[in-house]
C-alpha cells in the first residue's frame, strides 16, 4: 500500500512565503487532516502533493520514490476539489468513470465499477443523472466517487464540505470517513473547521502561516496543544500567563518540569465546573448566550476566566453575581508562549 512523506516543503509566490518547511507523513490507510485558518498554505501543500504546483522546495515521496517532475496525471493520487469541479458536459456516470476511462478500463467493467462506487457513496442507480440536477450533498458524493474510482494510493480532499450547511456537513464528514475506511485508502484532508478535522482524521496537523505547529491524534491535540496558536484555534480561551502569580498559586497541580517564565497555563473550559462546594470564588462579568451553550466570563484573581456552560442548566446566572468553581487540576497544560500570533 502507500505511504506519503513530505519533507521540508517550501513554496513562495513572488516574495510571499506561503509554505515554509512543512514535513508530514501519511501512512498506509491513515487519514491525516491539515487544519488551519484560510490563507495558512494548507491548500498549497495539497496542490504540491497533487503535482498541480510543479515548482516547490523540499521533497514529496510516495513509498520512497521522489515525485518531483511527475505530472499530475501520472501520479497515483485522487483529489476532491473545494468547488468539486464536476464536468458539466458529462452525466454522473461520465464523471465517475472519467478516471477509469483514462486508465483504459473497458466499457462494461467501467459501468460495473461506477455502479459499485455509486452504491458505496449512497447514490445507487443515478448514473444517467445530469450533475446540475443534483442537490449539494449529492454532488459531493459524486465528486467523492469520481476521486475514488481509479483506486488512488492517496485521496486528497480540499475543504470538500465548506459550501454545505452545518447539519449536512456533520453527516457527510462521518460518511466520508466511513467510505475512506471501507475502501482502505490513505487520505489527506484539508479544512479550516476543527470539528470536521477532529471528526474525520486519525491524526491532525495544525498549520499556521505556512508552518506546521503540531501533528497529533485528535485526543492528544485536545489534551496537549503544543502552542498558543493551536490552543486558541481549537477554541480554548483561558491561557493564563505563568507570571500571573495570584492566579497561578490557586493551581496546585501544575504539570511538572521547569517551564520558561513566559509560558502559559492552559485551563481548558472542560476543566472548570461551577459547584456550590467549589473553593474558588469568581465574579461573573459577562454572559453571552450562544445557542444551547452559554459563554460566561468570570473574574478570578485578576484573570477573566471563560466558562462554556449548558444554557438550560445555568439559566439563572446573572452578571455581577459570585460563582463558586472547581478546576480539575489534571487537565491543566503548560504551553510555551509564542508571541505575535493571532488566534
Amino acid at each position, binding site marked *: *500500500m*502507500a505511504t506519503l512523506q513530505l519533507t521540508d516543503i517550501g513554496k513562495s509566490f513572488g516574495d510571499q512565503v506561503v509554505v515554509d518547511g512543512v514535513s508530514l507523513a501519511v501512512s498506509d490507510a491513515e487519514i491525516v487532516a491539515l487544519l488551519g485558518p484560510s490563507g495558512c498554505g494548507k491548500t498549497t501543500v495539497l496542490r504540491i502533493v*497533487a*503535482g*498541480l504546483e*510543479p515548482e516547490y522546495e523540499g521533497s514529496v515521496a*510516495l*513509498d520512497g*520514490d*521522489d*515525485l*518531483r*517532475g*511527475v*505530472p*499530475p*496525471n*501520472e*501520479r*497515483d*493520487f*485522487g*483529489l476532491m*476539489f473545494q*468547488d468539486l*469541479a464536476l*464536468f*458539466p*458536459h458529462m452525466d454522473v456516470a461520465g464523471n465517475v468513470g*472519467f*478516471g477509469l476511462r*483514462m*486508465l483504459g478500463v473497458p466499457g462494461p467493467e467501467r459501468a460495473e465499477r461506477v455502479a459499485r462506487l455509486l452504491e458505496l457513496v449512497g447514490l445507487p442507480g443515478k448514473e444517467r443523472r445530469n450533475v446540475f440536477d443534483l442537490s449539494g450533498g449529492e454532488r459531493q458524493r459524486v465528486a467523492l466517487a*469520481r*476521486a475514488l*474510482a*481509479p*483506486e*488512488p*494510493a492517496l485521496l486528497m480532499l480540499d475543504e470538500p464540505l465548506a459550501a454545505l450547511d452545518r447539519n449536512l456537513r456533520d453527516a457527510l464528514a462521518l460518511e466520508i470517513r466511513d467510505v475512506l475506511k471501507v475502501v482502505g*485508502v490513505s487520505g489527506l484532508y484539508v479544512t479550516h473547521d476543527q470539528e470536521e478535522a477532529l471528526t474525520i482524521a486519525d491524526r491532525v496537523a495544525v498549520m499556521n502561516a505556512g508552518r506546521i505547529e503540531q501533528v497529533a491524534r485528535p485526543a492528544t491535540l485536545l489534551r496537549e496543544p503544543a502552542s498558543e496558536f493551536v490552543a486558541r484555534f481549537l477554541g480554548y480561551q483561558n491561557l493564563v500567563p505563568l507570571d500571573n502569580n495570584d492566579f497561578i498559586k490557586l493551581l496546585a497541580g501544575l504539570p511538572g518540569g521547569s517551564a520558561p517564565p513566559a509560558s502559559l497555563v492552559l485551563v481548558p473550559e472542560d476543566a472548570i465546573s461551577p459547584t456550590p462546594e467549589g473553593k474558588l470564588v469568581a465574579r461573573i462579568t459577562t454572559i453571552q448566550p450562544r445557542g444551547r451553550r452559554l459563554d460566561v466570563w468570570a473574574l478570578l484573581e485578576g484573570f477573566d476566566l471563560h466558562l462554556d456552560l449548558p444554557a438550560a442548566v445555568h439559566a439563572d446566572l446573572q452578571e455581577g453575581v459570585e460563582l463558586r468553581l472547581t478546576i480539575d487540576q489534571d487537565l491543566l497544560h503548560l504551553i510555551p508562549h509564542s508571541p505575535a500570533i493571532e488566534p
Partner: protein
Amino acid sequence: MDRRGTALTSAGRSARWPRLLPYGWLAFGGALTFLAIFFAYPLVEILRRSLFDGWSPDLGAFSEVLGDDYFRGRIFFSFWLALVSTVATVALGLPSAYVFAHYSFPGKTLLRSVSTVPFVMPAIVVAFGFIALFGPDGLVNDGLRWLLGRDDAALDMIGTFEVIVLAHVFYNYTIVMRVVSGFWASLDPRLAEASHVLGAGRWQTLRHVTVPLVAPAVAAAALLVFIFSFTSFGVVLILGSRDHATLEVEIYRQTAQIFDLRVAGALAMIQVVVTFGFMLLYTRLQERSAARIDFRQQLRERAPGSVLARCAVVLNALAVLLVVLSPLLALVHSALRVDGHYSTAAFENLFSGESATLRLVAPETAIRNSLAFAGLTVLLAVPLGTAIAYRLAAQARYSFVLDAVLMLPLAVSAVTLGFGFLIALDEPPLDLRASWLLLVIAHSLIAYPFVVRSLLSVLRGINPRLREAAAVLGAGRLRTFTEVDLPIIWRALVVGAVFAFAVSLGEFGATLLLARPEYTTMPVAIFRALGQPGPRALSEALAMASLLMLVAGAGFILIERLRYRGSSGF
C-alpha cells in the same frame, strides 16, 4: 490500488525526462511569429516607405499628401462620412436598443437574429442590394414610376453621399443595437428605482442615472461604427461617385491604378494611426464600462403596456425589417428579373459556359476559388485565433492591452493590409505575390479576431479546476484538451469558424488588390462584372451576388443556432 506498480514505473520514467513545453505557449509563440511576419512586418514596411528614403528620414510623401488640397479633401471626407454614418447609425440603433432591452414581444429572438444578418453580408452583396433598391431600375424607382406614372427614374440615389450613409447604417445598426441593448438589459434596475425613491422624477432619473450609465456602452458602439465606416471600402467604391473617395478608396487607387506607392504608403499610415487611436479608445471604454457596473440583478423585460410602448415595439420591428431585409430582397428580386420578366435566366447563364459578362473568369471558377479560400482561411484562422484566445484568457494582468494589440487587424483596413503585402512580401524567401497562399493569409488575418472574440468569453468562463480534476484523474495535457476543453468550447469554435468562413467569402479590399486573375473570387468577379457593358452583365452580377448572399445567409443561420443564448459581444 492494483495498478500502483505500473503507475510508479511510468512516474519514475517521466521524472527523468524534462517536462514537455506547455503546448499553449508553443502555439501562442507560433501565432505571434505568424503575426510578426504577416502583419507587423508589412505595416512596418509601409511606415518605412512613407517615412524614409532608403534609410534616411524623408517626410516628402507626407508633406506632399498633406499639402495637397485633393488629399486633404479625402482625409476630411473620410472623417465626415464616418461621423455622419455613426450619428445616423446611433440615432436609429438607440431606440431599437431600448425596445430590445426593455420589452418582450412575440418573435423577439427571430427579430434580433434578422437584425444581425448584415454583419455577415459581404460588402459587395450590400452594395448590389442598394443598387437593386435605389438604382435607376431599382425597386424604389419601379414603385415610383408606377405611382407617379413617369418613365424616368425619379430618385436616382446611386453615387450620392446619402446612399453610402444608408449602406453604413444597414451594416452597423446591429452593432449599436446588440452592444447597447445587451448592456442596458444588464443594468441593475434598482439603480433607477433608488433614484426614484430618492425623489428624482422620470427625466431627472434619465439625465442623472440612466444616461451616465449607458453612455460608455453607446460610446463604445459608436467608436466601433466609426472605425468600420472610416475604413469602409467596397460599399464606397461601388456606390459612391468619384467625389466620394475615402482614404481607403484612395489608397486602392494610388496602389492599383496610379502606382504611386509612396503616396499610398503615406495615406495608409495616416489611416492606420487614426484607426489605432480609435481602437485604443474603444478598448479603454470597454474596460471602464465593464468595471464600473454591478451586474447583479437583470432588468426584467415586460410586455409593452401603454399604447406608446406598443407603437414603439411595432415601429422597431418594421424599421429592422425594412432596413435589413429591403436591400437583400431587392437584390434577389432584381436577379430574378430579366428584361422585365421574372426568370432564372441570369442564374442559368452563370453556369451555361457562355456567360457573356464574366469574361475574365468563369463563374464556377470564381465560386470554387471563393469556397476554397474560405475553407483554407478557416483552417488557418481557427488555430491562430484559438492560440491567441487561450493566451488572452490565461493572461491576468494587462490583458486589455494585449487584447487591443492582438485585435489590431480588425482596425487596419483590408486594402492597407493588401498594400503592405504587396510591398513587403515581394522578395525571396517571402515572395508570395503570385501565390494563392497570400490571399489565404490575408483573409486569415482579417478573420481571426472574430475567432478570438467568439472563444474568449467561453474560455474565461471555464473553471480551471476542471482541467486540474482531469489531470489528477489521469488525463495528460492533450487528453485534458480533448476531454474537457473541446466539449465545452466546440460551439464557440464552430461559430468562430463560420465567422472566418463568412469573412473570407466576402473579403473584397485585400483580394481586389492581391488576387491574380486565376484566383479571382466571387466578390471580385462581381465587381469586375460591374465594369462590363450591357444589361446582361449587371443581371449576371446580381445573380452571382444573390448566390453569395445565400451562402453567407446559410452560414449566418448556423451561427445563430450555435451561439450561446444571450451572448452579445463583438
